[in-house]
């Protein structure tokens, strides 16, 4: 049907032209007829106040002055389009052959106002010809389009967006080629926007074969994007070959421009190559950094379905974990050598001032419902409180469900393997994490933390937790599950101070004597957790001459500690005045108080410690990567302890 209509329009145009030819003497009458025709067809008034003049030749030149096209009724601006003058020439010989060829069109001072009403109704949607917009219109061929002093205003009241642009065509200085320039300024969803576009001649937009050159510079706030390259068949957006570079303080600010939800991260910069094929935007040779982490790889975004599908394959030389804390509501570190935006530094200050440690800020879980994704990431090195060698992870997001599996870190011969599941469709969000710590060598960690600890040992264990909540604080306050850990080797005093991140200083004096051998033979921790309260189920640290126990609880709801570490000398003949150490108070500022007791008590019986779970867990942590030999002679510390326990039970 549309074709018939278009034939109709073409015929109408012809009729008008014929009339135009005949009515040589009264062109203003033609002007009025044409204006009336368009007014009737669009339901908006087209007025031509100026004269219509025709300069006759085989390609007659027509000039129409002062054209105004009425705006939608709801708008404050009376006209949607104003044109000081329209100049066009028609090739009459081609017209006789049935083709409409316009060798030249000149638009002088076009002033276009595009608006969206507060209800999101666009002013450019006219009540007519709705079904025709689907078909590709056979527009006349324009050989040269020239625009002088064009102005365009885009105003979207529903999205706090207001952009005004100047555009014109001009001859390029270097090659004499016609180029299109567009400069825009305004605000996009409230944030300032500046855009500069230099592109090929406008008529080339319809030419299929020649690649259409364009250079785009876009700035919104501190975000800067530059795109340069060519597009073939630009109206269909088919052959895209563009190079891009971008940088900004936080990728989240790109969400409005890209239409994809972006996480909040530290300052970033990226470059790569863009192409577009069959609804899929490809980013190849992506290279850049976020905060202090680097990334490289390929990303594709498939659009056109209910949710965009992002597929990414990324590698990294170094990931700094604190760069990603923002996602869960933690500010990045702001010390020397760290990268953070001004806003993020502010957040870090607030965080330091808060009496709580756990981030209370809601995680933007809803964003996970807007996209589907399959992202793999391999990193050679991970920078965190616990320096690690390797990160290997795959994230699958499907219909609001996130699975991180695997989420594996490696430390020398050992590994920390996790998988995380998150369902954003439930309110509050339900999640689950399972972690297995296998064969992690203590001296590797300590060496990286620059603690000289000659004693070798192993850490192993496992943890499973279920959470319900929208922020880390809420999640931990609802934690159900538990943690089991076994450790051999290491200096207990060093560990408490360094691994615990506690500067407990002289409080430790109450636990140890100077002469004490604080080298750990074996430590076993079992922390059953229900409703955000972690009970110290079993906590045993065996050193050469003392067995340490702990009891108490860690309350994640109130961020409160209530623990006691109790040293029990094995040998009564060694006089000891050591007192238990009470750890109470908030996570942020715990109090370490030595107990008042300083009176000698009896030797501790090893028979009180059951050996069974230690044996089982010990077998598990011995598991290591295939093909790796354990040349660690001291790794039998726990088995020695177990033997002693078994002996004691006889």
């Amino acid at each position: 049907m549309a074709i018939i209509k278009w034939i109709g329009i073409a015929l109408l145009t012809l009729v008008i032209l014929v009339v135009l030819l005949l009515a040589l003497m009264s062109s203003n009458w033609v002007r009025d007829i044409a204006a009336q025709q368009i007014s009737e067809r669009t339901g908006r008034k087209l007025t031509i106040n100026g004269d219509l003049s025709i300069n006759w030749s085989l390609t007659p030149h027509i000039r129409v002055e002062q054209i105004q096209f009425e705006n939608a009724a709801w708008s404050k601006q009376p006209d949607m389009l104003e044109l000081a003058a329209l100049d066009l020439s028609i090739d009459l010989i081609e017209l006789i052959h049935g083709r409409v060829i316009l060798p030249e069109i000149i638009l002088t001072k076009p002033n276009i106002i595009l608006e969206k009403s507060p209800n999101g109704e666009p002013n450019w949607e006219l009540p007519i010809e709705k079904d025709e917009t689907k078909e590709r219109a056979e527009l006349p061929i324009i050989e040269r389009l020239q625009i002088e002093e064009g102005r365009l205003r885009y105003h979207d009241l529903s999205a706090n967006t207001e952009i005004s642009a100047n555009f014109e065509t001009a001859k390029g200085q270097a090659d004499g080629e016609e180029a299109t320039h567009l400069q825009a300024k305004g605000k996009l969803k409230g944030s300032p926007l500046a855009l500069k576009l230099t592109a090929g001649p406008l008529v080339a937009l319809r030419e299929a074969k020649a690649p259409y050159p364009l250079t785009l510079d876009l700035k919104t706030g501190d975000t800067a994007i530059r795109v340069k390259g060519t597009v073939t068949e630009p109206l269909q957006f088919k052959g895209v070959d563009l190079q891009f570079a971008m940088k900004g303080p936080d990728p989240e600010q790109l969400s409005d421009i890209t239409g994809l939800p972006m996480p909040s991260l530290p300052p970033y910069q990226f470059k790569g190559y863009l192409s577009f094929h069959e609804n899929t935007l490809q980013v190849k040779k992506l290279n850049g950094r976020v905060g202090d982490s680097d990334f490289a790889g390929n990303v594709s975004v498939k659009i056109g379905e209910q949710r965009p599908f992002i597929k990414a394959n990324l590698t990294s030389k170094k990931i700094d974990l604190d760069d990603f804390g923002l996602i869960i509501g933690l500010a990045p570190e702001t010390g020397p050598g760290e990268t953070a935006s001004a806003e993020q530094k502010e957040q870090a200050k607030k965080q330091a001032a808060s009496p709580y440690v756990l981030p209370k800020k809601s995680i933007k879980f809803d964003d996970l419902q807007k996209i589907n994704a399959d992202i793999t990431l391999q990193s050679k090195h991970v920078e965190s409180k616990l320096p690690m060698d390797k990160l290997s992870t795959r994230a699958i997001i499907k219909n609001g469900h996130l699975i991180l599996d695997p989420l594996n870190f490696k430390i020398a011969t050992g590994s920390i393997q996790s998988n995380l599941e998150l369902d954003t469709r439930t309110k509050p969000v339900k999640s689950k994490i399972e972690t297995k710590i296998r064969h992690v060598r203590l001296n590797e960690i300590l060496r990286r933390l620059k603690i000289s600890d000659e004693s070798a040992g192993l850490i192993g264990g496992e943890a499973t937790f279920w959470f319900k909540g929208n922020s880390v604080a809420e999640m931990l306050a609802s934690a159900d599950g538990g943690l089991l850990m076994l450790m051999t080797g290491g200096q207990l005093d060093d560990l408490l101070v360094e691994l615990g991140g506690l500067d407990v200083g002289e409080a430790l004096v109450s636990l140890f004597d100077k002469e004490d051998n604080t080298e750990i033979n074996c430590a076993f921790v079992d922390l059953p957790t229900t409703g955000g309260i972690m009970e110290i189920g079993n906590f045993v640290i065996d050193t050469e001459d003392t067995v340490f126990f702990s009891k108490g609880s860690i309350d994640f709801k109130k961020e409160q500690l209530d623990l006691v570490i109790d040293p029990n000398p094995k040998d009564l003949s060694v006089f000891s005045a050591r007192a238990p150490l009470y750890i109470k108070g908030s996570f942020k500022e715990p109090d370490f108080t030595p107990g008042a007791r300083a009176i000698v008590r009896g030797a501790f019986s090893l028979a009180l410690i059951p050996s069974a779970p230690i044996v089982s867990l010990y077998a598990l942590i011995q598991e290591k990567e295939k093909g790796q030999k354990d040349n660690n002679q001291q790794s039998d510390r726990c088995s020695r302890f177990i033997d002693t326990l078994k002996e004691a039970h006889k």
Partner: protein
Amino acid sequence: MSYKAPPIIRVISYLLILFALSGCAGLFSHEPFTHEPLIKKEDQEDLTLAMQVKAKLIETKELSAAAIHVEASNEVVILSGFVETESQRKLAGSIAEKVPNVKQVDNKIKVK
């Protein structure tokens, strides 16, 4: 955050030590200790039993033993905590039953 014992406390501590030494209070007497050990002797058997059950759970690959809590009282084992599926809950229960000296298993594990 660093804790520094005020000098007065240190002095008192030393005095106490001296006092304890001079009186030889604990060294040669068999009086009960002034400090209760965290694990009491009378609970020892129950604790050992609970830990044996826990050990078996750790060895079971199908279960996440960290999230299963085990207690024992007079040879009755109380399982609590959390598992993912009903069959895991049953499995944990039957593993506990097979441990020697377990009279009864009270399976209070919740399925997530």
